[in-house]
């Protein structure tokens, strides 16, 4: 069932959510950086930017997640598990980011392997998404099967802006429905016409996305192009930082480290890692299968558009285009994969 809500009422709902749970939403700081940050009041919400500088990924898949603490005392060794995750709301992310959660969800629940830290946290997370009105030059979500400025994948509740400052609110999960039912007074029922309006919105929005890739064709080229001379030169501008991977809604690679604080306390922590880093694949003896910068560059694209597709039947990319914007040397993922030969 679809509902309508005004922009003012969205803020009211937001305030109601803030009162009950921890709410993360885009917030702009003194340096004009827009990040998902904990809101104290709905007025802090910055809904104008299309994309936040980083994704909301780190609210569920923490950049550094402590698995447990080890404590030694006179009673022996005790292992302290992390506290149960709290209920959170991610408010105002875009369909591409929401879909990113869907991609990672599958990964952290892959056949027998269930990552309980991620899954537990995800279970307590409500994702409220806003459809994109003005896609940017870096956007290419429509290249993907489910990709669209109004796509609901991964969202619990999708808000699509319509005319007259109204939003169409569609719940796709129980968590989404609960948001509406808890705050029903701010919503009104939507009509058929409004559903049609959404279609028009979709068409208009998609038209603004200039680039559409034929990913199936590219996929076919990738495997044979592994040893292609193409990689010799295409990686050259790349400085091998991790900006692209850390702002990506789907990159999930990590490293697990242990650290002793003193003689009595230590911890095990999982932190994001990046395949662009030299030490990502360096082994204890010093051997590094991807010591070469070309190999690391190739790996990133092979993983996203080839290996992952083999395993999960979808790309490890949602077309948000953040990596293009974040790249210090403006490397364009679209151009890189398009150019494969």
């Amino acid at each position: 069932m679809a509902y309508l809500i005004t922009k003012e009422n969205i803020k009211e709902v937001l305030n109601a959510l803030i009162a009950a749970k921890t709410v993360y939403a885009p917030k702009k700081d003194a340096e004009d950086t827009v990040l998902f940050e904990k809101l104290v009041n709905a007025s802090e919400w910055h809904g104008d930017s299309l994309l936040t500088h980083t994704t909301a990924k780190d609210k569920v898949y923490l950049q550094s997640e402590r698995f447990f603490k080890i404590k030694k005392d006179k009673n022996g060794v005790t292992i302290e598990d992390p506290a149960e995750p709290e209920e959170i709301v991610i408010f105002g992310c875009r369909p591409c980011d929401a879909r990113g959660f869907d991609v990672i969800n599958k990964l952290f629940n892959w056949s027998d392997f269930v990552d309980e830290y991620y899954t537990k946290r995800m279970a307590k997370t409500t994702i409220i998404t806003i459809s994109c009105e003005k896609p940017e030059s870096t956007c290419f979500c429509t290249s993907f099967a489910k990709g669209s400025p109004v796509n609901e994948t991964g969202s619990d509740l999708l808000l699509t802006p319509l005319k007259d400052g109204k939003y169409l609110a569609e719940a796709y999960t129980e968590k989404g429905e609960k948001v509406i039912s808890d705050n029903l007074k701010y919503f009104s029922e939507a009509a058929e016409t409004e559903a049609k309006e959404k279609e028009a919105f979709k068409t208009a929005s998609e038209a603004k996305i200039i680039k559409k890739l034929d990913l199936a064709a590219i996929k076919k080229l990738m495997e044979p192009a592994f040893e292609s001379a193409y990689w010799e030169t295409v990686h050259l501008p790349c400085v091998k930082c991790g900006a692209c991977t850390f702002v990506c809604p789907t990159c999930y690679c990590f490293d697990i480290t242990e650290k002793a604080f003193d003689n009595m306390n230590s911890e095990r922590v999982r932190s994001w890692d990046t395949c662009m880093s030299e030490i990502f694949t360096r082994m204890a003896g010093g051997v590094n299968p991807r010591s070469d910068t070309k190999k690391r560059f190739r790996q990133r694209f092979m993983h996203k558009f080839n290996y992952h597709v083999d395993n999960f039947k979808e790309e490890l990319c949602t077309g948000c285009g953040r990596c293009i914007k974040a790249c210090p040397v403006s490397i364009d993922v679209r151009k890189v994969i398009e150019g494969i030969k």
Partner: protein
Amino acid sequence: MDKELQELIKKLLTEKKAEWAIGYEKAYDEFSTRPAFIIDPADTARLIFNKYCINNLGLYLTKLKKNKLAVVCKGCDIATVFELIREKQFKRENVAIIGVACEGVLDKRTNKLLEKCENCQVKQPKGADFTLGNAKNSEKPKSYADVVEFEKKSSKEKLEFWNRQFEKCIRCYACRNVCPVCYCPDCFALRSMPEYLSKHVDADKNKLFHMIRMQHVFGRCTDCKACDTACPVNIPLSMLTKKLAKDAKELFNYESGADTDARPPLSTYDEGDSESDIM
């Protein structure tokens, strides 16, 4: 100027004066450019130079393992090349510096002129092998007003300011990797024996990384702003690099990248050095 530039590089490559040439080409939209690497003299047509050419191509001197390079440099980038020569990372005779006159570059995120371009003394490049175009240097000297203003804050205020900044930091190391003088074969941040920096990401540890990086580039950093403009979360690293430049000047009367034979301030000493603060 683009035509001139393309011709010059074509000539250098044809005459084998350089094996590779590094310049700029258009990237994904009209506001973005990216580094271009040219081997084939016939391939120079994509080279351009405009106010969006923000990258400091001196960076690639240490990244490309090539013998002879031609590099397109804005006046400010030449300091980087000189610094890398001073640090024995490249031989002067092996790099052809193509200086391009520059009226300032724009930050692709804000479309505003970079702060460093405002009082630029090297709009017309100095010390290049070839110089293209003409520009008039600023008459005003480099201003440290913002650093001076920041220095006036109490240490508590400074601490709070940086804590907020490094809370944003995602430790992607873009700042380090675009830094032309951060070419260490194995950065301290990646070491585990000893573990100078834990992989655990939090504001405190992020700050540790930046403190050490800043210390390591002291007397070497040319304040080129590559790190500042590369940061995906807009941490004002310029406030730090500019401080380094100011300290080098004030404490040791030294300017990085000015002289390929200089001794950087921490690799030398003077018997009469000040020790007013030493008990």
